[in-house]
């Protein structure tokens, strides 16, 4: 495999680029784990925000609780994983079993929240998981997927010496062919799509020391499919994304307010009510009333 040399040098390259940008984060001794409350986690969300509006990262708050839409992906992937293993019941039945299993056996925050739901809330959660699973089944070209496939996986890599962790959630991984699958239902522009593809490829390479062969992005609402081979250029793009996100998140934690860049992302920004440029954008100053 021609990818291994770059895969191995990428870790050193990433450390050299990212460490200076993370200079204000907690120093971590070799082999030690960073305290969780001081760990700067760089996920898809931070990568997107850093690419859209640096100021928005300062408005990030604690996770404010579960809701049906947040549970969709995790439970939908669990439904798909059971189907992959041969579950033959209908998706609704499987999703109800998944919810029940999570509620009974897990200590997670999701399990605790599921335990509080009544019949209507549970049905809303099952509804979301079923849609995700059926839309995925309709979108993938073959079923069952290739041997060695697993739905719902994640890759992480800790920046040596600093309390910084890069994380990438991947909806499915086929290990023998080193293929990654990213599922989305959100409208995005070309740049956003490229981020969706480059980020998991980059973090997976850092995490495993091996380059994936390819990444496929499936849009479950439109059916759009985009597949790229993982090349040096893709890894370079991932490193650029990481550098921008580490710098932006570090600045948001420790630095003065960053410049704002209003846009359609203001609609879901937690700081929209206290950000005058964002408020103006949302109030229509820069928007056509038929766009939303």
């Amino acid at each position, binding site marked *: 495999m021609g990818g291994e040399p770059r895969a191995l040098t990428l870790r050193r390259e990433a450390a050299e680029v990212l460490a200076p940008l993370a200079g204000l984060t907690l120093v971590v001794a070799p082999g030690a784990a960073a305290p969780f409350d001081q760990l700067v986690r760089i996920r898809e969300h931070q990568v997107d925000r850093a690419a859209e509006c640096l100021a928005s990262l300062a408005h990030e708050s604690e996770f404010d609780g579960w809701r*049906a839409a947040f549970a969709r992906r995790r439970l939908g992937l669990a439904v798909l994983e059971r189907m992959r293993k041969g579950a033959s019941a209908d998706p609704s039945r499987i999703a*109800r079993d998944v919810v029940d299993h999570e509620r009974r056996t897990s200590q997670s925050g999701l399990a605790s929240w599921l335990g509080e739901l009544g019949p*209507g*809330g549970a049905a809303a959660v*099952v*509804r979301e998981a*079923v849609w995700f699973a059926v839309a995925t089944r*309709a979108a993938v070209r073959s079923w069952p997927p290739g041997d060695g496939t697993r739905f719902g996986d994640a890759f992480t890599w800790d920046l040596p010496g600093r309390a910084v962790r890069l994380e990438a959630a991947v909806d499915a991984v086929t290990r023998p062919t080193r293929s990654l699958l990213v599922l989305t239902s959100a409208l995005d522009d070309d740049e956003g799509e490229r981020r969706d593809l480059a980020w998991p490829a980059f973090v997976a390479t850092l995490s495993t020391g091996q380059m994936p062969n390819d990444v496929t992005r499936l849009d479950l609402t439109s059916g*759009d499919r985009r597949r790229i081979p993982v090349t040096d250029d893709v890894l370079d793009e991932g490193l650029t994304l990481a550098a921008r996100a580490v710098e932006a998140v570090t600045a948001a934690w420790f630095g003065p307010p960053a410049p704002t860049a209003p846009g359609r992302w203001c609609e879901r920004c937690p700081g929209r009510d206290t950000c005058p440029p964002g408020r103006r954008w949302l109030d229509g100053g820069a928007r056509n009333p038929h766009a939303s």
Partner: protein
Amino acid sequence: MTATLAALLEEVATAPVPIADPGPVIDELRDRLETAATEAVDGLGAEHLPVRLPKARVAELLACEQLAVTASASGRSLSEPVVRGRILDRLLHHHVHGGGPAPGPALAVAVGAFEAERDDEVVAWLDHDPDLRARLAEDASGFAERLQTLGPIDPAWWPRCEDRLRVDLADGAVVCAAQLDLVAGGGPTGRPMVILEAKSGPFTADHRDGLFWYALLAALRHGSPPRGVIGWSAWEGRAWWQPVTADVLRGAATRGEEALARLAALLGGRAPDRTACRACAWCAERPTCPAARPLDGGEDGGGFGDGW
């Protein structure tokens, strides 16, 4: 007609296939909509994109351009008919995905769903008026009873509620998205796709046009049209179904083209025309609108394509 859901689906599945070779029809309709969308956004700045064309906006643009402009600028606020419709949706979701009848009052089932969705606005709205809540609780109980009459759906159809789809036109400058009340079949099920739309009031011609728009979007999205569409009124407990023929799809595309042409004119700066229509009853422009139709009955306060 009054029929169970199982019987309706069986009827749709065993009826003659309405479009033997849908490929050329879908290609033709996609071309027409692409052309209309491209013309609509010609010259529009990137900061204004994408332009969204949901079902309700198509209906508004065709009914009264001023209504479309007003609704786009002000958003859609909650009202009794809108919340009644959302309650019905949640009861349908429980009927399909809940795994059996729910104990307790039907409204509590819907409120449980709103809470799980963190739809705090609806929950607060329901709490602000005890009389209103009592009325909606009664409606919810009626809906739940009529859902039981509608009956279960064979799980082999892989029924799913709130099925989302999106069709991007003009390189994504125009976005047509939809969230379907209930979809059965299609994709990996080996059964024909059927779309069901549930309404909390009587099923009207506006609703029928909206359902045909959904059929068109589903055809474009999946490359194959739904076999049929079902409209079900939870108010009356009655349903009808219609096969999705080429003419149904062409009619929906023609409405879409016309909506896009009007949208293009409005985006280009033309003043919106005012046309008296059913929406006059609840339109915010009504007090000052010279075209407003006189009220000929109670105000229903609903909206095109939402809530009923």
